[in-house]
């Protein structure tokens, strides 16, 4: 094809990249995909997701890997960075008709080398529970689509329970199932259980005997992803209405809200210590939100399109003892029993396995005071050469690493350091940071042009930036402490009187949700929801959705095109980073050999 030389092909696809800790290399022998590759036609649009489980079988390859591509689902032994893949021998391979797998999750508590439990969600709303090793179990939930007809967007086992799981749908609803209960032959009858700002929860009238146990209705439009905090007490949910909502799972209380700069939020992840949440979305940004301060800490700009998945790297995030107490002091948090810096293996093993017994007690208790996530889950690591550290990093002992992948086919790695975390809200950034952010997409940006001594009107950018915060007409109205703004909004919604109802309904109609078809059926429920116009406009300029100049803009440490196709998944493993693309190719990136490579 004549035109082929153009466009997509001009940027080389990277097979390695270098960070301060060293060089990451693509392991070509560790590439997973369908056993027989056919030319990709770009037609399947369900994102390819990857799930892992460590079955602890005593061999060098204890990990099992599951991925979906098109109408197929594969489970392989994941051989990591050292051994070559044998694609001809999947543990399990399933091909579905009429409905496509969209997401899956292994049970991380019930497993053995001979048996694992895998949940799979589908485009038509069904959920399947299978044992891909033993192949004996196969249960279907929502088989008749009486509970929800829309696509399953995210599915997770409840970390604090052995037989419950949570399923979110593009209808904007989320259901709690008990693995052992039937789904019934009739549509469920619901009764209100709990209601708050922008969400409501219902129970099935016969919840003791059938699924779903609970139905959550959250925001407007699809729920795109949800994630439990490492201590499993908190649940973060991101939606197409651009909101992140964080709940105390056991009490179903809304603890905090964030709004994207614009557009839907597509993905969410917790920092290993549970202090920060990172989201990615249709504003091409990654946004870091502080759980304790309830505010946006910074935004990251590096992607050239929507961000499909974000994940913290627990193995490269560092928290040093000396400065930790300083930072955590204001929160009244005491960390004890943590591993010393430099002990990689112990610290990191804790991360992937939350302390189940400790949390499950709390889980049953209602109205707990907001508890600190377990500090022990912070990994400590020093597996890079100190000589390559930037000076700022040696001074700041807190540094979180996270990664993101996007529809731009690029992988970005980010460092979240103490100087960013401690920057007070609303202070104007130094102009260099701001302009670097604005210009970073242009290769020959002109930072110098922005600090001109100029007699021309007010066109010197430096002076304008300095003025911007104070002179912006909207600054005074919105720049006040956010917590109050959010609280006021919520109390107002909560007390909407009957006479307000008519207006509300009218407005609701105008801003009918994205999944219009489905929400028609639940119009009663939807009328209780926050109106997107109001909340998006109201939150702008507050700590839940700061203006561009109110928080720092982070630049990626690494931003590399690693695929021809949109990237859909990223996970951080002890030895490697694993990425997946829409075409169904799973790549393994070996971490730097420690610590000698660092000096490059």
């Amino acid at each position, binding site marked *: 094809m*004549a*035109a*082929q030389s*153009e*466009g*997509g*092909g001009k940027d080389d696809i990277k097979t390695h990249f270098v960070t301060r800790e060293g060089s990451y290399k693509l392991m070509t022998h560790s590439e997973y995909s369908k056993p027989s590759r056919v030319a*990709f*036609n*770009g037609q399947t*649009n369900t994102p390819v997701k990857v799930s892992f489980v460590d079955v602890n079988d005593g061999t060098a390859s204890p990990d099992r890997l599951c991925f979906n591509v098109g109408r197929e689902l594969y489970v392989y032994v994941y051989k990591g960075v050292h051994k070559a893949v044998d694609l001809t021998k999947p543990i399990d391979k399933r091909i579905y008709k009429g409905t496509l797998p969209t997401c899956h999750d292994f049970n991380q508590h019930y497993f053995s080398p001979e048996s694992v439990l895998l949940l799979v969600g589908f485009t038509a709303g069904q959920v399947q529970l299978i044992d891909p090793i033993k192949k004996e179990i196969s249960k279907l939930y929502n088989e008749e689509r009486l509970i929800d007809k829309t696509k399953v967007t995210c599915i997770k086992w409840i970390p604090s329970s052995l037989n419950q799981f949570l399923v979110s749908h593009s209808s904007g609803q989320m259901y709690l199932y008990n693995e052992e209960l039937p789904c019934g032959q009739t549509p469920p009858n619901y009764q209100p259980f709990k209601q708050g700002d922008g969400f409501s929860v219902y129970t099935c009238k016969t919840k003791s005997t059938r699924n779903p146990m609970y139905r959550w209705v959250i925001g407007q439009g699809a729920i795109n992803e949800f994630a439990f905090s490492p201590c499993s007490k908190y649940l973060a949910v991101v939606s197409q209405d*651009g909101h992140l909502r964080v709940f105390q799972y056991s009490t179903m209380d809304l603890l905090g809200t964030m709004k994207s*700069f*614009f*557009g*839907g939020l597509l993905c969410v992840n917790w920092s290993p210590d549970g202090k920060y949440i990172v989201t990615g979305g*249709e*504003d*091409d940004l990654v946004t870091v939100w502080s759980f304790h301060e309830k505010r946006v800490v910074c935004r990251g700009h590096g992607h*050239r*399109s*929507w961000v499909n998945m974000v994940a913290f790297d627990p193995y490269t995030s560092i928290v040093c003892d000396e400065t930790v107490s300083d930072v955590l002091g204001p929160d009244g948090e005491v960390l004890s029993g943590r591993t010393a810096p430099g002990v990689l293996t112990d610290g990191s093993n804790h991360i992937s396995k939350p302390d189940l017994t400790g949390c499950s007690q709390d889980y049953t208790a209602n109205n707990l005071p907001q508890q600190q996530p377990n500090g022990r889950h912070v990994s400590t690591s020093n597996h890079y050469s100190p000589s390559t550290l930037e000076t700022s990093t040696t001074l700041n002992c807190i540094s979180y690493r996270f990664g993101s992948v996007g*529809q*731009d*086919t690029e992988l970005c790695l980010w460092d979240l350091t103490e100087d960013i975390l401690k920057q007070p809200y609303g202070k104007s950034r130094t102009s260099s940071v701001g302009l670097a952010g*604005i*210009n970073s*997409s*242009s290769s*020959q*940006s*002109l930072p*110098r*042009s922005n600090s*001109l*001594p*100029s007699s*021309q*009107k*007010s*066109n010197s950018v430096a002076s*304008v930036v300095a003025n911007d915060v104070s002179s912006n007409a*909207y600054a005074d109205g919105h720049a006040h402490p956010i917590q109050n703004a959010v609280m006021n909004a919520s109390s107002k919604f909560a007390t909407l009187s009957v006479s307000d109802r008519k207006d509300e309904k009218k407005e609701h*109609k*105008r*801003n009918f949700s*994205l*999944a*219009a*078809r489905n929400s*028609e059926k639940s119009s009663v429920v939807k009328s209780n929801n926050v109106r997107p*116009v109001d909340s*998006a*406009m109201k939150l702008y*300029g507050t700590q839940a959705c700061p*203006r561009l100049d109110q928080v720092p803009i982070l630049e990626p440490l690494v931003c590399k095109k690693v695929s*021809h*196709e*949109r990237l859909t998944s990223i996970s951080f493993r002890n030895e490697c980073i694993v990425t997946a693309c*829409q075409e169904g190719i799973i790549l393994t990136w070996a971490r730097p050999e420690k610590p000698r490579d660092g000096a490059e």
Partner: protein
Amino acid sequence: MGANASQLEKEIGSEQFPSNEHYFGLVNFGNTCYCNSVLQALYFCRPFREKVLQYKHQVKSLKKETLLTCLADLFYSVATQKKKVGTLAPKKFITRLRKENELFDNYMQQDAHEFLNYLLNTVADLLTAEKKGSQKTADTNCNLKPDPTWVHEIFQGTLTNETRCLNCETVSSKDEDFLDLSVDVEQNTSITHCLRGFSNTETLCSEHKYYCEVCCSKQEAQKRMRVKKLPQILALHLKRFKYMEHLNRYIKVSYRVVFPLELRLFNTSDDAFNPERLYDLVAVVVHCGSGPNRGHYISIVKSHGFWLLFDDDIVDKIDASQIEEFYGVPSDMHKTSSESGYILFYQSRDEMK
């Protein structure tokens, strides 16, 4: 057709069907889908529709026929139909268009963006001329810039063009108005990224040097264009037709460019009046096929919270999740042919009262 219409009504449901709203397909008079798709998109840009209908009420039938009166008659005809769904023939409008501009006086496929430009500018000129005519006596100062018409109030924004001389470092800036922005497209990017690209810094050197008035000579300079005043309706044209010299013709670039339902601009100037505007996607003109002079245009529009697809005389309700089918093609395979977003209409939320 009748079956289609009643099916649409059924699908929306009589309770859900918005009162005072009409969904009418437009008959194709031989490759006039470029025109139909733009007219439908404009009809669902509410501020524009309201002004056109107001115009219809203001000027009575005595008026000489213009493109604007034809447009007003067409919109009025849709808005006053007894039925809620159906089909109309925009015959008078097409005839007038062909009479007025020889570019459109044939049965070839035309560029929808060119037509949008022509239509908005013609309407604006007609309104300006009418204003002048009625104010002749009062307004003696003819040198002043004409008052903005409602076309300008709706679609016009301002760009500021900042140029920095690399010799004396002086920055000069010049403002220019726009009715829409044309942005370059890249594979697997977002409209947000394309807009950032629009405002990237460009270095003027060699034969493109810039005459600096402070240095009184041609100098190397850097320039960038950013948005200073954000319009009420932001029309974004994706430059999907590229001239290929070796082929001696235009080809279509079907790159996948995603566009969100909600948008803010990053490329605003530091002295922008209203940089915080939050936009909602209200209409998209989609090009289907492989080149500017072949293929087909359709449009998708948002009306009362749901999405409709207008394909000439056919109207369908679609789910918001189907919009992703119009982003373009992600890999190089079916590169030249696609159904891909070509003109995006974003409406500022504070105006959606």
